[in-house]
């Protein structure tokens, strides 16, 4: 398990190494806080109007839902793939059945994802 902690150590090292960049930048950069316009959201030279965060839905939301399902499927295939050399040849049959079901589901989902009236 020590190895996994090294990934976290690397993560922590990058945080420790990069945070000073922001702090130094904050220290040596000129600051003029007197102008409230500067801190408005950037909107192409217009005075901003409306909220930045709204109920905003891309029409491709279906793909994100599909990701939730098929990501798990993909990782499950790894468990099979990593041990394929040790398994008997007949074990491919349930996997093919599993993939068949998944393909069907995926085809249906892709079909539904093109319908603009739902999303």
């Amino acid at each position, binding site marked *: 398990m020590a190895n996994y902690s090294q990934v976290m150590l690397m993560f922590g090292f990058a945080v420790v190494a990069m945070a000073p960049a922001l702090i130094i930048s904050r220290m*040596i*950069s*000129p*600051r*003029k806080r007197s*102008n409230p*316009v*500067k801190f*408005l959201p*950037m909107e192409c*030279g*217009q*005075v901003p109007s409306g909220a930045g965060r709204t109920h905003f839905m891309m029409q491709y939301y279906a793909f994100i839902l599909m990701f939730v399902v098929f990501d798990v499927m993909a990782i499950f295939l790894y468990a099979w793939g990593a041990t394929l050399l040790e398994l008997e040849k007949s074990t491919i049959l349930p996997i093919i059945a599993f993939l068949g079901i998944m393909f069907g589901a995926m085809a249906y989902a892709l079909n539904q994802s093109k319908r603009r009236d739902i999303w």
Partner: protein
Amino acid sequence: MFKDLITPQTANTFIGKLGDILVKAIDQPLGYAINWGRLWSLWPVHIETACCSVEFGAASSPRYDVERFGIIEAFGSLRQCDLVVVQGTITRKMAPRLRLVYDQMPEPKYVIAMGACAITGGLYFDSYNVLPGIDGILPVDVYVPGCPPRPETLIQGCILLQEKIKNMKAR
């Protein structure tokens, strides 16, 4: 008696002196380094105001290639830019927007007034919708005359600005 020595005033003076010494020690090399970085990395904001933008575009073409001087053309957001090249006439409709763009940019920022119209109003001195130069709304660093200026002239203006940045306050 020791308490008398360390009063807030004396501590303040001491720290102030220390700060002064530090400033003298590190400000000059640091300031030089910062200014050097700034002058080689002028990113112009993407705002076209009038017809001089044609020549501004030509300045980044292969023949003139302002990227040699570290100037990247067509940069996306104004938050990452530090140079406003006012490309020509400023109309009354554009002026508040230009000022807003300038205000929203992070410090330090520089302004190049490109073309006769941006300097004095130029050919449009008597038009009802044109400002007589942008001095009234922006602090201009370098004036590049011409109607429109050739790309070489714009590049020379950028070099003048680099010379100016070299001698500027670093912060």
